[in-house]
């Protein structure tokens, strides 16, 4: 059972410039990882592919029936998740970095916390675990509640836009949303929408919880469909909106939701334009 975290969480900029960087620094990204880093990656991969679990269930994946080994592994996993206290010093666990959270309490025979990837944990896994497409499919299936407009529509999206769905990996890197000026973006519609998206996500920082963040990431995902697929194709689509039209013509709820976002952006830019019209610097 997945329960969305209603508490306030950091914003996307915090993910991009703090959480992702810290996690990459502490847990490593490349192949030369320490044993500790490999263990953390193992936990993240288990949660990515299986959804919410107790540490016992996580340990059982490796040692199906050997209870002694399961118990040892379970303790190790719990230590990695919640950190540890040595001589009064608390060393941070994966939870402290906002990658994993306690989802609920298990009500089975041995009650314990059920852990799952947070929304930032999902992004970080997409960035750093080098997941195959089929693993991303599994991850999508297990995290539909966290990202309902992306993972909740995964098979539908795949049937319409194929492998373009896997561009979601780039969101894990925080690509483009706050600094599209770093590269020359030749699609003006993409540029305006992603710029508005950045403004909107900053406005919403105060009310950010997992549900709101899930909505924002969905906007980000669909906006980047205006740009990234064309970047990969040899034969460019002249109608850059085509890929969105394909999706939204078949899902009217999504269409309505994204149309509202576009309307909001249009109103925002009109109002900003009016502000500038009022400037007079001639004496």
């Amino acid at each position, binding site marked *: 059972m997945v329960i969305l975290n209603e508490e306030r969480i950091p914003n996307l900029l915090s993910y991009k410039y703090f959480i992702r960087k810290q996690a990459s620094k502490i847990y490593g990204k490349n192949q030369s990882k320490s044993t500790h880093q490999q263990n953390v990656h193992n936990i993240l991969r288990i949660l990515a592919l299986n959804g919410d679990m107790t540490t016992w269930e996580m340990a059982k994946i490796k040692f199906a029936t050997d209870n002694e080994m399961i118990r040892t592994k379970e303790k190790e996993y719990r230590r990695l998740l919640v950190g540890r206290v040595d001589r009064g010093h608390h060393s941070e666990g994966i939870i402290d970095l906002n990658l994993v959270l306690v989802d609920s309490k298990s009500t089975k025979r041995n009650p314990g916390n059920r852990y799952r990837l947070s929304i930032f944990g999902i992004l970080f896994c997409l960035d750093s675990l080098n997941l195959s497409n089929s693993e991303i499919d599994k991850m999508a299936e297990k995290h539909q509640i966290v990202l309902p407009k992306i993972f909740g529509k995964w098979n539908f999206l795949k049937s319409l836009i194929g492998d373009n769905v896997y561009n979601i990996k780039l969101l894990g890197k925080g690509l483009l949303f706050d*600094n599209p000026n770093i590269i020359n973006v030749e699609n003006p519609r993409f540029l305006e929408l992603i710029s508005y998206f950045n403004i909107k996500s900053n406005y919403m920082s105060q009310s950010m919880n997992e549900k709101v963040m899930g909505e924002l990431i969905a906007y980000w995902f669909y906006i980047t469909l205006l740009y990234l697929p064309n970047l990969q194709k040899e034969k460019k689509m002249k109608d850059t909106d085509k890929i969105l039209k394909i999706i939204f013509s078949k899902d009217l709820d999504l269409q309505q939701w994204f149309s509202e976002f576009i309307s909001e952006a249009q109103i925002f830019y009109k109002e900003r334009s009016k502000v500038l019209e009022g400037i007079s610097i001639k004496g």
Partner: protein
Amino acid sequence: MTKGTILVVDDDEFVLDTTSTLLEFFGYSVIQAKNGIEALSKYRDKKPGLVFLDVKMPKMDGYDTFFELTKENPNAKVIFMTAHADYSKWEEAKKRQALDLIEKPYSAEKLKKLTEKHYPKK
């Protein structure tokens, strides 16, 4: 299986990250360096097929990095990037077979075309 390895060298972390991400998106594996000295060491270690090298960097600028690099590897394939239109040693670099010099910000399309044009064919 990637299309090959590219070294990206830039002291601006955001440019370094964005350029690397796009190159990965195009199917290459990327190694990063934040200055010329680190770039020389990583080139020796990994022998990338192509290098994107920022011109203006602390410690050792892009041109001097290139001249050092080509002493050991005369066939190194290097594309310069500049945000300051710094062409001061470009002619000298061109004589030593530097491939191109592009101004920042560049488009992802341009990055892709240049990479496909210059990455050594197997």
